[in-house]
Structures are given as structure tokens and as C-alpha cells.
């Protein structure tokens, strides 16, 4: 291992919570929210890969790859929705989408 696992975990945590902070802050722009989600997923991938390296088990890498596949599916679908919503509402501000109100 190049560095102790703890340091990598802290890096992943930083990235994750930066992404989370961005997610909370960028409520006005759906695309930036998706970007922030990508950041968070990336951080998770980092944890998996670090674990894989720590214990010499390729399963961590496999999960990172799965996450990547999942992300690509999610992003394609989400962006399609963005396009759809933008077409209907002319905006990507999530605060204007409140149809989920109970």
C-alpha cells in the first residue's frame, strides 16, 4: 500500500461530503446536482478500490466497475429526464418541481 488505508478513506470521505455539500447547494441546477452525485459515487469507488488493494481481493475492483456501469445507466437516464423536463418547463431548477408534495 502506498499510503495507510485511513488516509485514503479520509480522502474518499472528503470527496463524498464535498459532493454532498454541492448537492445541497446546487438545488437551482439539476445538471450540477447530477455532477455532484457523480463526485459522491466516485468517492465510493475510491473506497472500494482502496479496500481491494488493502486485502488483495479483486472483488473491490469488481464493485467499482459495477458502480461505473450503474453510473452510466443512471446518468443517461437522468440526463434524458433533464432534457424532458427542460422541454416542458424551460428550467432545470428543482425547486420549481414540487409535484411530489404529499
Amino acid at each position, binding site marked *: 500500500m502506498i499510503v495507510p488505508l485511513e488516509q485514503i478513506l479520509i480522502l474518499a470521505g472528503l470527496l463524498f461530503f464535498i459532493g454532498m455539500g454541492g*448537492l*445541497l447547494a446546487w*438545488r437551482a441546477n439539476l445538471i450540477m446536482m447530477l455532477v455532484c452525485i457523480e463526485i459522491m459515487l466516485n468517492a465510493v469507488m475510491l473506497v472500494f478500490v482502496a479496500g481491494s488493494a488493502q486485502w488483495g481481493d479483486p472483488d473491490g475492483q469488481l464493485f467499482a466497475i459495477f458502480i461505473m456501469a450503474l453510473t452510466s445507466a443512471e446518468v443517461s437516464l437522468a440526463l434524458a429526464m433533464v432534457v424532458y423536463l427542460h422541454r416542458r418547463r424551460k428550467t432545470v431548477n*428543482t*425547486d420549481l*418541481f*414540487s*409535484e*411530489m*408534495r404529499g
Partner: protein
Amino acid sequence: MKLYLALILLLPLSGGLFNALLGRLLPRRLGEVVACGVIWGAFACSVLAFISFNAPEQVEYASWLSDFDFKAPIALYLDQLSLSLTMMITFVCGLIHLYSVGYMKDDASPSRYFALLNIFVFAMLTLILAANLPLLYLGWEGVGFCSYALIGFWYTEEKNATAGRKAFIVTRIGDTALGIAMVWMFQLFSTTSITELNGMGFLMPTGVITALGILLLIGAAGKSAQLPLSVWLPDAMAGPTPVSAQIHAATMVTAGVYLLIRMFPLIGSSPTTLAAIAIIGAATAFYAATCACVQRDFKRILAYSTISQIGYMMLGVGAGALTASTFHLLTHAFFKALLFLGAGCVITALHHQQDIFSMGGLKKQLPAVYWPFLAGVLCLAGFPGSGGFFSKDDILGAVFDQGGTLYGTLFAVGLLTALLTAFYTFRMLFVVFHGEASTPLNHQTLTPDTRSAGRVEPIMTITLIPLALLGLFGGFLNLPKYLVSHGLLSTFVASIPGFSALEHASDATGISLQIIAATTSLLGLGLAWSRYTGRRRAESLQLEDAGLHFTRFFLNGWYLDHLYNLLFIHPFTWLSRFLWKKIDESTIDGTLNGLARITMRLGEIPAGWSNGRVATSLIALAGGTAALLGYAVWSLM
């Protein structure tokens, strides 16, 4: 005997149920016939029972209340007292029922009326014939209920309904005392049978007996409208006049006296109780007589006279003169029913005019009413030779015989009351029937064409005649000792414990007392005559119409109602208002409303979060994450 007794009770009950359940569906006449028929049937049964009567008898029909050593079967006890009362009640009530047919001929709901009237009789007979206190209490409460329903019979008028409620509530005070006495007696003697209780009085110290006696006295005072629970009876005039007659003569107010007479062997051993009964009786008699002297409502005069006469009966019980009390109870039933029914005729004839000052000169218009009414007046005033004279004099004689300062005073009060009684009775008679009509209204009433509108049904006047005869010659039931060796009633009831205990004074004393009483009565007659007939009539009427200061005091029944208002109703209203406004609305409701408001405010906080926005959910998610992680750190430390 068993059959007769059962029929005496069951006939009025079935008649009442028949009218209550089917009366509205069947023709009016059928309901009337059934209602009157069952009462006369009960009278026939009581006559048959009288014929086959040998000795006091207790008949048990069924078990009613039974638990551990508490037993109250449906058992009837027939002795001379209950038998004579039963005959009187069924007879008088039968006449009143007949009279009601005429009086209520235009009323809209005769079935309700007759059903209640029948059940009233049933309840009173239950009370009279009950062999144990719970059954007596059942009748006692039944009488109270029926009186409530009948006084408020024309309940569409606020005043009548209020009068009914007043009667119910005031008598309830006495009923509570009776209930306490009943339970206490069971606790003391482990029995509810009246005959057994009467034989066990010596087991208890005098203090206990006195307390029991006072409780029973309160109960009797409530039912019999004695001081201080007398306020309901004058207002009870709101009901139909035959109902007043029934309440006053036969079924309701005499119940208290009957109770005391019935329980006399138990409570009679306490001189304190007897003195209390006598004092209450004499005070009530005097109080009511003074009030009656100035009343101007026809029925209120009679109501106060009833209170006064019941006071005499109580005085008699207090003096230990049970025979005299019973005697007066019987004669009073006859002549008071007569007076009320006569008053009902007059009121009907005058289109429900009850103010005696707007009556006058009815002697010529209503002779069929006048003569029986005169008989009733003579009885009530204790005119020499009438039934009322003998019975009242019996009581006064017994009081005199007791001697001592207390009973001497009471005798004087009784005599004064007799004077007042004669005065107000003849005042009523003279004002209503003699003289000339004094007001324009009356003139109108007496014109031939309008008079026919207020025509008195023949059946109403016919029923007066037997009552008048019984009232006038009721004295023969129990003539004084100097005329016959043994009065009929005295002989009949002599074997009941407590009745024969009295030592009668000498004939000479008896005769002199009679002369005094007769003089008193004639004096009252003379006073009334000089004041309300001839030239002075108009003058006195005008004077009383204007109303004097001291008459107002008597007119309002010594402001007893105001006293009640001041002592009970105002504090109670104040307390209720306080509880309502301050405790209930401010404190309890306020707390609840406050809690609800706080809950609502609390609820609005998370409710604002469900605004459907993604950002809110995300913040909640992030907040949850932060909280979980923070908690993990917290637990690490």
C-alpha cells in the same frame, strides 16, 4: 284476599299501560272508559277485600330484590289502616277520573293524561299496601314521577314545565332523606319489612330512633309539602285541576302522613321526634293558613289550605293521635277533592279564569257547583257538624290532652289556625259565589251567549255530590266518645299497634273543646261575612286588589321561595357559573385548546417539510447522515 290485593294494584297499572301503549290508536271514549273502569274495578276489589277482611294479612307474590340477607319481595300488607286508605283512594280517584272525562274533553292528548293518572293511582296504592320499605319507596318515587309529569302536563308553557320540575326536585330532597333512613334501618335491623321494623324499635337507643324519625320526617315533609319543603305545592297548581285534586286529596301529599303513621310504632318511642313532627305540623298549618288568607288565585288558596290541613295531620301524628290523623286524612280527602273539583267547574265555566277578584255572584249562575262547594267549605272551615269539624277537633283534642307547655302552645297555634282557616275558606266562598260581579270581564262572562261556551259538563257536577255527602257526613266515621261509645274508625283501627295507645280525656273536656272549636269556626265565618258580603265587599276587594305591604308578604308565601333563592339557588348558580366559566371553559378547555394549539404548531413544522421539493429531501438525508455520524462519534467518546 290474595286475588283482591293483586287486582287492586294490577288494574290501575294495566289501565295505565293500556292507555300509554294503545290509547292513541283507539277511540278516545274507549280510553276514558278503560281508565275509569280500572279504578272503579280497584274500588270494587277493595270493597270485596273489606268484606272478607278478618285480620291484618301479609301476602307475598314474588321475589323482587334478593341478595345475601337483603330481601325485598313483592309483598303486600293489608291491615285496617291500609284497607281504609285503599278504599278512600280508589273511591276518590274513581270520582276524579270520571270528572276528568268532562274536564279534559277538549284536550289533545287524553291517553297520556289518563295513563299517567292511572299509574299515579297504582303508585300510591303500592305505597299504601307495600309490606316492605323498598316496595314502599317504589310507590313513593312513582308518585313523585307521576306528579312531575302531570303538573307539567301542559308542558308547552314554560311556567308549567318549571312547576313540574320544581315539584320533582323539592320532593327529591325529602326522598333522599327517606332513602337514607331506609338503608340505615336495614343496616340496623337487617330487615326491610315494615311490620318487623315496627316491632324492633326497642332494640335501639333513643338517639338512633330520633335520628331515624327526623329522617323520616324530612322525607314526609318533602312529600307532604311541610315546612320547609312546602314551596312546590302552590306551584303545582300548573297542572290540570283534577290532577291537583288527586295530588291534594288522595294520592300524593298524604303519603308523608301515611309514612309517619305507618312507622309510628318505631319512631313513636322518641319524644323528640314526636315533638319535631308536631312542631313542623303546627308551624306549617299556621304558615299556610296565613298565606291562604290573602291569595287571590283560586287554586292557590286551596293549595295553601291543603298544606295547612296536612300540617294538622302531622300535628296529630306528633301528638300520638294516629286515629285522629287518619280520620282527618280521610275526611280531608273527601272535602279537598270536592273543593278542587268544584273549583275546576268554576274555572271551566269562566274560561280558565283563576283570579277570585274577577269572579263573583256565581251562586245563581252555577247552583249545581255552589251547593256541593258549600259543603266542602263547611268541612274545611270546621263548621260544627261537618266531617272536617269532627276530625280536626279530634286532633286538637289529642294535642290538648298531651298537656305541657309545648303542646299547649301548639294547641293555641292550632286553634288560631282554625280561625284563620274558617276565615279564608269563607272568604273564598263569599268572594267567588256571593255578591255581584265586579269586573267588566266578569260581566261579559255572565252574558248568556258566552256563558254557554264555558258550559260545565254534567258529569263534572254529578261527581261533586257523593263527595259532598261524604264530606258532610264523614263525621259519622268516628263520632266523639260522648256521642257514641266507640267511633267506627276507632274501633276498626284499634288493633293496629300505636293506634289505641291514647288515653282520652273526659267527656266534659271533649265537649268544651268542641264548643271552643265551633266558636272559632263561627268566628271566622263571621269575620269573612262582615268583610266580603254586603256593603263592605267592594271596599275590601278594592283594598286587597291594591295590595298592602303585609299582604304581599303572605301573598308570596312568606317569601319562602326567595329564601330558597337566596340560600341555595343563588350560591348554586354562582358556583355553577364559576365552574362553567372559570374551571371548565378557562382552565380545562383552555388547557385542551392550548395543547391542541401547541400540537398543531408542532405539526406544522414537519408539515412544512413535505413540500415536494427535492432539496428538502436532500437536506433531510444529509441531516440524517450528519446526525448518525455525529452519534457514532459521540458513542466513541
